[in-house]
């Protein structure tokens, strides 16, 4: 009975019937495509919302410690919790039912006590995200330590035990030391914008506990991924850098460092290193760098920009008078990079001077004048800090008194009043301390604070243009903002004039010339705009070579010194500014200029000068920039701690800071289901697998019984 249909289909001719079905399928497929359309949808996008702005704290290591944050290998996942107050921490640390938690902190709660409590309960804390406000907070926030660089300055147990470790004066009393703590969960910074509002809304919709009841699944969760490779300390990570047996060797950390910028009023032969006979130099020093709790955010307005902009303006003011009436001594302008991390730049320069690797020697240095934090003078006073220990020697004391007298003389008819703080007060943290460690050189550090820092935001992300009161009237175009002279620019100009005149007198210049030395407030305000608001402005664009244009951005530069391989933004900008402000335009072709010579046969100029072809301004009736050659003495010198050249990674004398490497940092938000649902899904899956295995085994064992019905020989005839 069942064979008849089989015979029937077998006997009919096959070819004609096969065409029609395949044609039908093709037609069906085409119709479906037209109706439905080609639509591709990623499951990943339906689940996860990626964070656009990811700024996290990273791990730094030195000879003895590791500081910063770390996440686990696959990222830390936690249920979101927006912390309402410090008492609400109880939910996160003990009473919340769904640990671990990812804590969202508004900026008033980002304090030492909250963070230390979170650190102690870190088994229940998956990470922290801090919402950075759009304006500076009203209180103080300084994540740096209370005694910056206490072990790498000049005040140690051997120099003067009474002044070591800030026993006499605590320089940063508002510091909470958060930057130097170690956290084993990631800490990210979020901007207060729409994306953060999405996060808060997600918390309110899903995670909020209503009147003591448990929040029900699904819950809103966040994953933060910032795996840091290096561990323990610098010696370990440098050792692991060197051991590389595997196929692709992986570097684990990099030393911090960059370049110092230096220039001189009289050209010095840079190829002949070591002591220069009859050369006596006055060092004018400033600091270029800063840092904050988070990686790559370091506006450093008061701690860095105020100092080096004042020194740049002073150098500009001195340009003409040192050509016309050159003083006896050379003035050596130095801008040190990496000073935040145990004086990387200044320790390297002193080391080079001691080992005849620099154009001059320590014997060539007559005195030092350092420009520190000078942006927040609330009255007309400027404080001249000196070192009481070296002044116990009479000859040094006399030189320091002369320098102070020159500073007072330079301040006549200016609205700045130099004042001397208590004689027994030590020097604040400054690059001059590294020079004093080598030998007792007379010197003064200019600051706007008498003893403790006036800055409320020392080395924090709030130390920005707003804090220095660099503000512009509304409705100005960027070009107009660039040219507008702010009050803070005027105040800084006064300081720059004082520094310039004092340097000229200290270098042996005549008193009669002092009235001609004036810093230009237009230059100062343009520099402040460039370093505090945006680097991509028309003035900076004129001063740089054309291949540097891509490095100018529409935001303030980041003053963090960074790893050695990563060039820090202000260094090269300061070099170009120094070249243009202290150098001169020479009539040299572009090719000669870029080859460091004045003409084809010149072999000597490269030792004394440095030549740069800058792109210049756009003339009014054309579109092409007119470049020109600038000849100056503004050079770069390496600013990497001597500890890495000497391979003494546990050195107590030099900075040993390194920065860990990491995989790309990211974060995302998603909803998580309850643990029971996950186990249920897994259980159902395993059950389906076992059932199918069993079924397959049973069917294959009984195959002859189940599938015997269709097996008749085809040549059966009936």
């Amino acid at each position: 009975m069942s064979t008849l249909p089989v015979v029937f289909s077998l006997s009919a001719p096959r070819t004609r019937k096969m065409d029609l079905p395949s044609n039908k399928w093709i037609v069906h497929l085409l119709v479906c495509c037209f109706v439905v359309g080609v639509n591709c949808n990623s499951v990943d996008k339906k689940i996860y919302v990626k964070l656009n702005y990811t700024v996290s704290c990273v791990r730094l290591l030195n000879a003895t410690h590791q500081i910063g944050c770390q996440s686990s290998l696959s990222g830390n996942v936690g249920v979101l919790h927006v912390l309402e107050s410090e008492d609400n921490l109880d939910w996160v640390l003990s009473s919340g039912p769904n640990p671990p938690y990812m804590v969202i902190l508004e900026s008033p709660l980002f304090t030492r006590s909250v963070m230390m409590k979170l650190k102690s309960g870190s088994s229940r804390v998956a990470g922290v995200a801090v919402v950075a406000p759009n304006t500076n907070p009203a209180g103080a926030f300084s994540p740096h330590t209370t005694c910056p660089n206490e072990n790498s300055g000049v005040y140690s147990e051997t120099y003067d035990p009474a002044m070591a470790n800030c026993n006499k004066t605590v320089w940063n009393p508002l510091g909470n030391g958060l930057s130097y703590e170690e956290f084993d969960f990631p800490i990210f910074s979020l901007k207060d914008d729409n994306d953060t509002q999405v996060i808060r809304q997600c918390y309110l919709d899903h995670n909020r506990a209503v009147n003591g009841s448990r929040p029900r699944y699904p819950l809103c969760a966040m994953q933060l991924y910032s795996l840091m490779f290096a561990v323990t300390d610098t010696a370990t990570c440098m050792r692991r850098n060197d051991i590389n047996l595997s196929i692709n060797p992986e570097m684990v950390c990099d030393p911090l460092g960059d370049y110092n910028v230096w220039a001189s009023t009289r050209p010095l032969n840079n190829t002949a290193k070591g002591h220069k006979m009859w050369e006596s130099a006055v060092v004018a020093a400033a600091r270029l760098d800063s840092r904050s709790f988070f990686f790559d955010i370091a506006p450093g307005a008061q701690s860095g920009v105020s100092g080096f902009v004042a020194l740049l303006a002073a150098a500009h003011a001195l340009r003409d008078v040192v050509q016309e009436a050159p003083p006896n001594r050379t003035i050596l302008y130095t801008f040190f990079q990496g000073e935040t991390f145990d004086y990387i730049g200044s320790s390297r320069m002193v080391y080079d001077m001691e080992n005849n690797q620099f154009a001059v020697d320590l014997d060539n240095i007559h005195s030092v004048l350092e420009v520190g934090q000078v942006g927040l003078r609330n009255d007309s006073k400027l404080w001249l800090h000196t070192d009481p220990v070296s002044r116990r020697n009479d000859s040094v004391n006399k030189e320091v008194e002369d320098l102070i007298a020159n500073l007072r003389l330079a301040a006549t008819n200016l609205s700045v009043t130099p004042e001397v703080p208590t004689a027994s007060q030590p020097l604040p943290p400054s690059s001059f301390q590294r020079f004093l460690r080598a030998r007792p050189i007379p010197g003064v550090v200019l600051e706007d604070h008498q003893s403790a820092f006036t800055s409320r935001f020392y080395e924090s992300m709030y130390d920005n243009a707003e804090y220095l009161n660099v503000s512009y009237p509304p409705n100005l175009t960027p070009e107009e903002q660039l040219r507008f002279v702010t009050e803070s620019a005027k105040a800084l100009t006064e300081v720059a004039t004082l520094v310039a005149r004092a340097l000229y007198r200290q270098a042996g210049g005549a008193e009669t010339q002092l009235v001609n030395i004036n810093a230009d407030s237009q230059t100062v305000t343009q520099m402040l705009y460039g370093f505090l608001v945006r680097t991509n402005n028309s003035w900076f664009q004129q001063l740089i070579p054309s291949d540097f244009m891509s490095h100018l951005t529409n935001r303030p530069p980041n003053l963090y010194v960074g790893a050695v391989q990563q060039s820090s933004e202000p260094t090269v900008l300061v070099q170009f500014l120094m070249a243009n402000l202290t150098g001169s335009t020479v009539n040299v072709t572009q090719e000669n200029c870029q080859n460091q010579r004045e003409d084809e046969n010149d072999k000597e100029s490269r030792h004394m000068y440095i030549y740069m072809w800058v792109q210049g301004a756009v003339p009014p009736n054309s579109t092409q920039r007119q470049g020109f050659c600038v000849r100056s003495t503004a050079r770069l010198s390496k600013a990497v701690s001597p500890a890495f050249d000497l391979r003494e990674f546990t050195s107590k004398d030099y900075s040993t800071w390194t920065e860990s490497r990491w995989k790309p940092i990211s974060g995302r938000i998603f909803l998580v289901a309850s643990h029971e649902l996950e186990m249920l899904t897994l259980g159902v899956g395993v059950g389906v697998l076992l059932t199918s295995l069993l079924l397959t085994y049973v069917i294959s064992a009984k195959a002859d019984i189940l599938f015997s019905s269709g097996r008749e020989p085809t040549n059966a005839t009936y």
Partner: protein
Amino acid sequence: MNLERLPNEEKLCLCRKYYLAGFALLPFLWLVNVVWFFREAFVKPAYTEQSQIKTYVKRSGMGLLFWVAVLTTWITIFQHFRAEWGAMGDYLSFTIPLGIP
């Protein structure tokens, strides 16, 4: 290779080769010897070469147990103490994990 098809002398020869080669610090050869010739040595009905095959299998088994004990002890000690050994631990490692001591 199917042992069913081999004559008994060749089975003995093979078992001996694996047993001797395992002394060149190759415990996996002893593992193979034990697993492969287990049925031949203990389950099959007796034949002339079986007693020798049985001794080779037993000795391979003992060598295997010795290696397992040594390796388990060393691996446990290394995994536990590598972080504390500092530089020595790093020099002994082929791959050093990132981000943890």
